[in-house]
């Protein structure tokens, strides 16, 4: 009986580790092997050592993709996350009416399929027919902005879509954290003469640190592997102005049949994301069991 009880937890976690091994560990191993080869998807891969990596280091498209991914990571961390916290703060106001309506509506974009979002924003941001330009034209007499075709505006547009899609999702985490802050802390801070800003920095921020850590790390990982929005809305364009690393990998493998090169680019992303997120985890101490 005791031995069965000792074995039970292993049996319970076994399905996860079997799938983890088959669909995570093995593919990463295969990626490592492929990254050292040149392969068009047919025949046998040719071993070429670290050539893929040295090529990547010289590939301006890859630099561009890394830079763009970095921009979208920064947008997520320094725009989406703070906006989510701000909205959560508003929603946490005592006695707020219709809190559930706000919460649900803000969350709604997250529920939609990326293709639906892409479709919507392609329509709204269309240079000639788009509603955004129509409104600008009606209000200010200017509405010729090429939202998806101008190098800077295309990045701005994708950034806005990220903001629109993810803010409400992150708000949920912050709101829960804010609601868990003991009210007495604010009261004693107020008795000590702390104003709204002081209360925010001395009470709110320290209290929600674990959730902030979680949100920051997951946002970082999500943004680093961004694919759907730029692929669907701008196709990575104009030129390569919104090309991300995930798109670079996809393009190399499935449009140019450079499987080895794609695997190498994927591994570079893996090392960066995994390394940095482990570092962040350590620094912020998240996901520890009690």
């Amino acid at each position, binding site marked *: 009986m005791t031995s069965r009880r000792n074995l039970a*937890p292993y049996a319970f976690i076994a399905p996860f580790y079997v799938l983890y091994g088959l669909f995570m560990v093995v593919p990463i191993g295969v990626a490592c092997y492929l990254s050292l080869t040149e392969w068009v998807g047919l025949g046998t891969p040719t071993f070429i050592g670290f050539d893929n990596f040295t090529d990547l280091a010289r590939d301006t498209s890859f630099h561009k993709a890394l830079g763009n991914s970095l921009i979208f990571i920064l947008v997520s961390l320094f725009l989406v996350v703070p906006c989510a916290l701000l909205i959560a703060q508003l929603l946490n106001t005592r006695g707020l009416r219709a809190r559930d*309506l706000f919460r649900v509506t803000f969350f709604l974009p997250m529920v939609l*399929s990326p293709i*639906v979002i892409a479709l919507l924003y392609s329509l709204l941001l269309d240079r000639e027919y788009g509603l955004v330009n129509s409104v600008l034209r*009606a209000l200010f007499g200017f509405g010729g902005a090429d939202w998806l075709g101008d190098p800077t505006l295309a990045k701005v547009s994708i950034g806005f879509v990220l903001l*629109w899609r993810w803010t409400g999702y992150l708000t949920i985490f912050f709101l829960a954290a804010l609601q868990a802050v003991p009210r007495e802390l604010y009261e004693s801070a107020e008795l000590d003469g702390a104003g709204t800003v002081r209360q*925010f920095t001395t009470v709110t921020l320290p209290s929600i640190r674990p959730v902030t850590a979680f949100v920051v790390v997951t946002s970082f990982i999500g943004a680093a592997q961004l694919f759907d929005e730029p692929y669907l809305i701008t196709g990575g364009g104009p030129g390569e102005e919104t090309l991300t690393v995930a798109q670079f990998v*996809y393009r190399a493998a499935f449009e140019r049949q450079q499987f080895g090169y794609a695997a190498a680019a994927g591994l570079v992303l893996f090392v960066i994301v995994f390394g940095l997120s482990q570092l962040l985890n350590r620094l912020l101490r998240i996901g520890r069991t009690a």
Partner: protein
Amino acid sequence: MSATRTTTAPGPAATRPTPPHRPRRRRSLPARIALYGTLGLLLLVFAAPLLWALSGSFKPRGDIFDYPPTLVPDPATTENYRNLLGGQPFWNWFAISVVTALTATTIAVFVCALAGFAFAKYRFAGKKVLFNVMFSSLSVPFAVILVPLFILVVKSGLANPWFALIVPWVAPAFGIFMMQQYIIQSIPDEILEAARLDGNSEFGIFRRVVLPLLRPSLGALGVWQFLQSYNSFLWPLVLISDTDQYTLPLGLNILFRAESRAFDLVLPGAVLASVPTIAVFLLLRKQLLEGLSAGAVKG
């Protein structure tokens, strides 16, 4: 009273009557206007594109781009829907998406609850390491396994939607983490001990005691997983080349690209595609929103 006390600060003074600090009360009307104004504006920003798409889907082709935009289509027509459903294999795509997502969801919920239970309620050798391995798999970007996974699945002859859209995704680490947090909070050890004394096996305890108690969080994880599967794009995009086996996002993507400016066809598609997720979300929103936050708050 709570309505008149609304302030933009996170409600510090609101629990107890605190006589000396009263300026807030006088500021409360403008503050309230600012608060509801901001939230209302945000509501518009979040909801307007959706309402506009919904209304556009009922407009004749020529009216969709009319300015100023009208919310209520006039004349309203269901022709777009009839064209879409009559001329495209929409229901095929829809069925593949829904069936694969439901299957993946059912299995994932079970696998995650089981593993979450083990991590929450048992002590065993290697637990910490195994947990960290599981947890750190969250930070593996999909792009790194995209190519090798594609090759493995194709080489092993499993590149059909019924396997490849389901099986690799039925054990998300996020789900295990979420379940573990939930179980720690909501299942007391005494219940498990009592069930053991009653002669239940360990799996019997999971099935008869734990699962029923977990129902709300299973709902949360279920919605989350359904959204992930149903909305996934990149993996189906590389995997499926046969249009008959397309998932809904792939089908819409093809329509969107091929029929240039056929927004009268794509808009109803977008609306119909969103029905399952929005319905599931609205029905189970309480569980989902609370389930998501329960996981993180403790972490």
